């Protein structure tokens, strides 16, 4: 383990250069709540280069761009977002999803960027960010690109990032009045567990009619899913029982979950529809106040 090295670049260009030079042995360190566990368990390969990105201002800052649009650095912690003066009002669903990750101690370190890049299908922040329509800024040896959050995970523990590419920040779009979001997850206890199902819903309501919607589902497939058919069932409706059941059925239809001690395939599939209905109700209630 002694030949693992540590670097803390001051700029993103330096961080990308370090990742390129590491030739696949680079490990990004944001909050470290996954990396340090792997390190202490001996799962980080000898010769790895730890690249700590927290000395880079863009990685750790939150920018309120107005109208509900935010830029959130990839290494911004859950507590930092929780304590931000305007973020909670703008994106309550995204915040509640990020704040569900681990304990308050973990919240002091863990980031949405790390949650995305750890690429767990059960990552709590990802369905909410997908529902939000968030994009990520990725920087690599060929420059910068903008990618939808749902395009980043490729499967459990795998991402679509090119060699040397780093997730720099999330951009949350501006939303019209009457918009809000919500995230719900089901776990077998009340705290500190991995999602059996997670569901993020983002809505815009106008005169009692749903004019825009996005739905993200977690822990029911190898990657977090954007469920466009569920959104379609909600848009144009008054969120009546028929529309909700159609959207719930669309959620159940895309589920390809695993069977494990936390939940069976049948249970996870059923719960996906239940959480869709409940999260939609919460998002609509919040939207009515905006």
């Amino acid at each position: 383990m002694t030949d693992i090295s540590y670097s803390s670049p001051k700029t993103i260009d330096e961080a990308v250069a370090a990742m390129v030079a590491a030739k696949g042995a680079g490990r990004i360190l944001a909050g470290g709540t996954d990396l340090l566990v792997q390190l202490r368990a001996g799962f980080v390969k000898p010769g790895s280069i730890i690249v700590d990105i927290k000395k880079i201002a863009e990685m750790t800052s939150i920018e309120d761009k107005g109208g509900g649009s935010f830029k959130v650095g990839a290494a911004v912690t859950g507590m930092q977002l929780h304590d931000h003066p305007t973020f909670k009002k703008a994106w309550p669903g995204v915040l509640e999803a990020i704040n569900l990750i681990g304990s308050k101690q973990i919240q002091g370190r863990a980031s949405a960027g790390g949650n995305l890049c750890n690429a767990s299908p059960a990552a709590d922040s990802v369905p909410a960010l997908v529902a939000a329509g968030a994009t990520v800024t990725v920087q690599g040896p060929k420059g910068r690109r903008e990618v939808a959050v749902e395009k980043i995970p490729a499967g459990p523990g795998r991402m679509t990032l090119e060699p040397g590419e780093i997730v720099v920040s999330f951009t949350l779009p501006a939303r019209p009045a009457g918009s809000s979001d919500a995230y719900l997850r089901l776990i077998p206890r009340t705290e500190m567990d991995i999602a059996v199902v997670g569901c993020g819903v983002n809505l815009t309501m106008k005169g009692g009619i749903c004019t825009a919607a996005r739905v993200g589902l977690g822990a029911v497939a190898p990657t977090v899913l954007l469920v466009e058919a569920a959104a379609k069932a909600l848009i144009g409706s008054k969120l009546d029982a028929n529309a909700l059941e159609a959207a719930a059925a669309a959620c159940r239809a895309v589920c390809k979950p695993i069977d494990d001690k936390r939940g069976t395939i049948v249970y996870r599939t059923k719960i996906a529809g239940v959480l869709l209905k409940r999260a939609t109700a919460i998002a609509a209630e919040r939207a009515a106040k905006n």
Partner: protein
Amino acid sequence: MSKLHVTTTINGEPTEFLCEPTQAVLDVLRDQLGLTGTKEGCGSGDCGACTIMLDGRMVCSCLVLGAEAEGKKIETIEGMAQGDHLHALQKKFIEFAALQCGICTPGFLMASRALLERNNNPTETEVRYWLAGNLCRCTGYDKIVRAVMEVAADMRGAAR
């Protein structure tokens, strides 16, 4: 790999240490600096026994590299009492028997202080959720929660 030189502040004292690139702050505190008040429970961020404050944020010191402490402010359980004068939480934990074996206690005290600095009027639910990252196998939690609620009430009384 050569050791890294780190300059930091621990409980208000400027401190320097050398650490391996993979060494956690927890191990630096305990094995190199002799600050053994911070305990190792699980070593994976689940139990909270190693809770410290890092630049005012509550973190598990098993999940922070020593190298990351460069230029940061660390607070540990050793900085809680002022000489022989125990912190109100420490006194109340003793009074309420909110500990038995004591391994989890430094973490609970650090976490409870962090809560009361943010909110001196928490509900019981808020206390329980805030302390959900600290595990105790002895007390059943009730005595700990009651001690924290009582100190919060005392703080509000004193502020009036």
